[in-house]
């Protein structure tokens, strides 16, 4: 058995170290370490409750709006206020803009550049991938960054700026879009649609969203020539490298549900493990047995949890806690969100090969094709002249829960207010679920499981298969530990 320590693990958001035990050309065990602690849960204690809106977005520069949204929801629950329709729509648009921009950054800037590596020279697609996706200098980066920046003009309109806006308030949005601004938002959405359809998909968004099975995906591909968009490039590489056989997930997929509409969340909340289960957040516990924190007698629900660093704790190997749903390890992200929401291709991918590098990446792209048209519809529903924000009072003693979906999956905030101040604020981020260390029963976290069996070539110090698997989760390490 040989031990490899892989780090710094770049092209993920934040700091990550992966320790691999390797034998006979494959990973036998993995330990995932989040090596940066900042202590936001400690920083928040004693602050005025509304100050969370300033502080928590700054947990993460890439999931900043998701952190805002969870905080606004937790505060709204504690205050007993409900945003008016305009506020809800503006928040949906803002969060969706962040989530789509994140999916795009992940695909083009974080994930695909690995296929441009010299190690793949000799593959039929390598020269094309190198020209297109090479880190920093590929042709894709030169097209995607301006398209992304143009799309983020939405944030200037909807939220003042990105990251770190204060526009998402418990009572709605501080930014009342007027009729002419609706036209500007629509224009940015249409411009981004043209980029996605021309460059990423090579087809209309609706046609992508309508692909309803693995067989239908094969038929769709058969009808396109080479160079018909970057999705086709990805699918070709995925086939050749058998990415669908890499990084198999544990089989339990969790989503809090996203984008509230008048009749409930558009993407519903739930657990998918081959069948759909109800998700009751009361069944969540955070285990800290292998994390550098003081332990309570038993894993606690986040509403009762604490964050007390213990840097010398024996047996611990990460600053990441280990959240579990009903005692189970769960994976979260676009794959989980779309599986729970019943997207037929994603469910078929899971039935065919489970969560894996290919299905995780494809689920994000499918989600892009579904969410942009929804953003166009939400924009039409904005009703200037009607209120965007209502006010409320924070009681001296109150509790609130905020559950949202960041690009990377389920994000929860649990707030308790005593004597008018934040008494406790606990955050469980998507990558806390995905990259958790072992729990008290020794069960490895989702990534730790997915890495077992990954091939390791002779002399590989940072195995490429491991890098693909890790990046397929689109981890956000600054959220993970916060």
């Amino acid at each position: 058995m040989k031990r490899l320590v892989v780090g710094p693990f770049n092209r993920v958001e934040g700091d990550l170290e992966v320790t691999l035990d390797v034998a006979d050309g494959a990973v036998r065990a993995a330990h995932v370490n989040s090596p940066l602690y900042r202590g936001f849960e400690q920083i928040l204690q004693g602050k005025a409750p509304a100050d969370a809106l300033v502080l928590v977005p700054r947990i993460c520069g890439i999931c900043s709006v998701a952190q805002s949204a969870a905080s606004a929801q937790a505060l709204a629950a504690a205050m007993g206020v409900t945003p008016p329709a305009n506020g809800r729509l503006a928040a949906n648009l803002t969060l969706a803009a962040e989530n789509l921009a994140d999916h795009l950054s992940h695909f083009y800037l974080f994930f695909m550049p690995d296929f441009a590596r010299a190690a793949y020279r000799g593959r039929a697609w390598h020269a094309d991938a190198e020209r297109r996706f090479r880190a920093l200098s590929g042709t894709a980066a030169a097209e995607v960054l301006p398209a992304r920046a143009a799309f983020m003009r939405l944030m200037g309109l909807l939220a003042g700026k990105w990251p770190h806006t204060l526009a998402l308030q418990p009572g709605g949005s501080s930014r009342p879009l007027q009729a002419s601004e609706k036209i500007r938002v629509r224009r940015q959405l249409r411009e981004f649609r043209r980029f996605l359809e021309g460059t990423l998909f090579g087809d209309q968004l609706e046609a992508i969203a309508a692909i309803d099975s693995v067989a239908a995906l094969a038929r769709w591909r058969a009808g396109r020539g080479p160079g018909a968009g970057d999705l086709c490039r990805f699918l070709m590489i995925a086939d050749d490298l058998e990415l669908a056989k890499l990084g198999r997930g544990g089989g339990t997929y969790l989503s809090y549900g996203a984008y509230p509409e008048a009749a409930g969340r558009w993407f519903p909340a739930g657990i998918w493990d081959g069948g759909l289960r109800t998700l009751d957040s009361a069944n969540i516990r955070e285990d800290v047995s292998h994390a550098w924190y003081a332990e309570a007698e038993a894993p606690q629900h986040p509403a009762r949890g604490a964050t007390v660093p213990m840097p010398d704790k024996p047996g611990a190997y990460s600053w990441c806690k280990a959240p579990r749903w009903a005692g189970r390890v769960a994976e979260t992200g676009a794959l989980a969100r779309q599986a729970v929401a019943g997207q037929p291709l994603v469910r078929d991918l899971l039935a065919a090969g489970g969560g894996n590098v290919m299905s995780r990446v494809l689920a994000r792209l499918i989600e892009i094709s579904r969410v942009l048209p929804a953003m166009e519809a939400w924009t039409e529903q904005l009703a200037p002249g009607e209120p965007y924000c209502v006010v409320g009072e924070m009681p001296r003693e109150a509790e609130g829960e905020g559950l949202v979906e960041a690009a990377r999956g389920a994000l929860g905030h649990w707030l308790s207010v005593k004597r008018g101040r934040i008494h406790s604020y606990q955050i469980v981020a998507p990558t806390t679920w995905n990259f958790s260390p072992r729990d008290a029963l020794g069960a490895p976290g989702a990534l730790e499981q997915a890495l077992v069996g990954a091939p390791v070539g002779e002399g590989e110090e940072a195995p490429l298969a491991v890098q693909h698997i890790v990046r397929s989760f689109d981890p956000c390490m600054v959220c993970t530990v916060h």
Partner: protein
Amino acid sequence: MNLLWLQSGGCGGCTLSWLGAEGGPLFVALADAGVELLWHPSLSEASAGEARALLAACADGRLPLDILCVEGAALRGPNGSGRFHLLSGSGAPMRDWIVSLAARARHVVALGSCAAYGGVTAAGVNPTDACGLQYDGGSPGGLLGADFRAGGGLPVVNVAGCPTHPDWVNETLIALARNALAREDLDDLCRPRFYADHLVHHGCPRNEFYEFKASADKPSDQGCLMEHLGCKGTQAHADCHMRLWNGSGSCVRGGYACIRCTDPGFEDPGHPFAETPKLAGIPLGLPADMPKAWFIALAALSKSATPARVRENAKADHILRAPTVKKAGR
């Protein structure tokens, strides 16, 4: 000119803000200015051992390092060990990496308020004993010490902001590459003066409401955010309303207060961020350089002269009353 970008106790938001730079492909613009990105944690191909080798080559002088950019605060805890952030794969505190790389760099740039002064990472009880590269809050010192000078002779250049603006970063980097940034181009807190010599108030679209002290009461109101909702735009050093964010935005344009995020200590204002602290009804934080008595006198005068249009629109989320249209004389 090569550039090495590291992240420590921060959120990565300055990188993400930077990726939103407008005006053509970002990497092409940098290359055009002669800036070569040696390594960036979110963007480069080199991983793990390849990246460690590159950092080590810079740290021991085998590879010349022109610009070291650091994003995020330096974490000194727990108990001075720096173990709240170990550079993964190296077993060594990131703090130590920053110190040894800064000693070799021709220029050191702190990107964002965390790297400059400690920022939000140092808020509240400052659990990680976070500080800036050359400041601990507003006090000179920090990780590298008040006397630190990079190889090129400058102290750490503080491109403060939370996040920092993409063009504050680009214009600083390009100025360094062109050898066009001198000590006198930095203000007393070592921020580039091209943006820090302005106030957020300059170009504020709510200026008419400010002039008449017609104030917003709640988020989404159109009025001035200074009197009740915590806005510090008249004291904050930045050109946010002159260059704008993400095309057409700013904090105030987004309907919320400027929290003075380019200043040390902004993270702990001593009052709730979105409430204006007052004494006998007068806001405590007055516009920069303005005598208090004059402000009070002018505020009282302008309040009494407020047009009904301005007064009514201030407390609404859309225009209730348009400016009068002058009939053309015959």
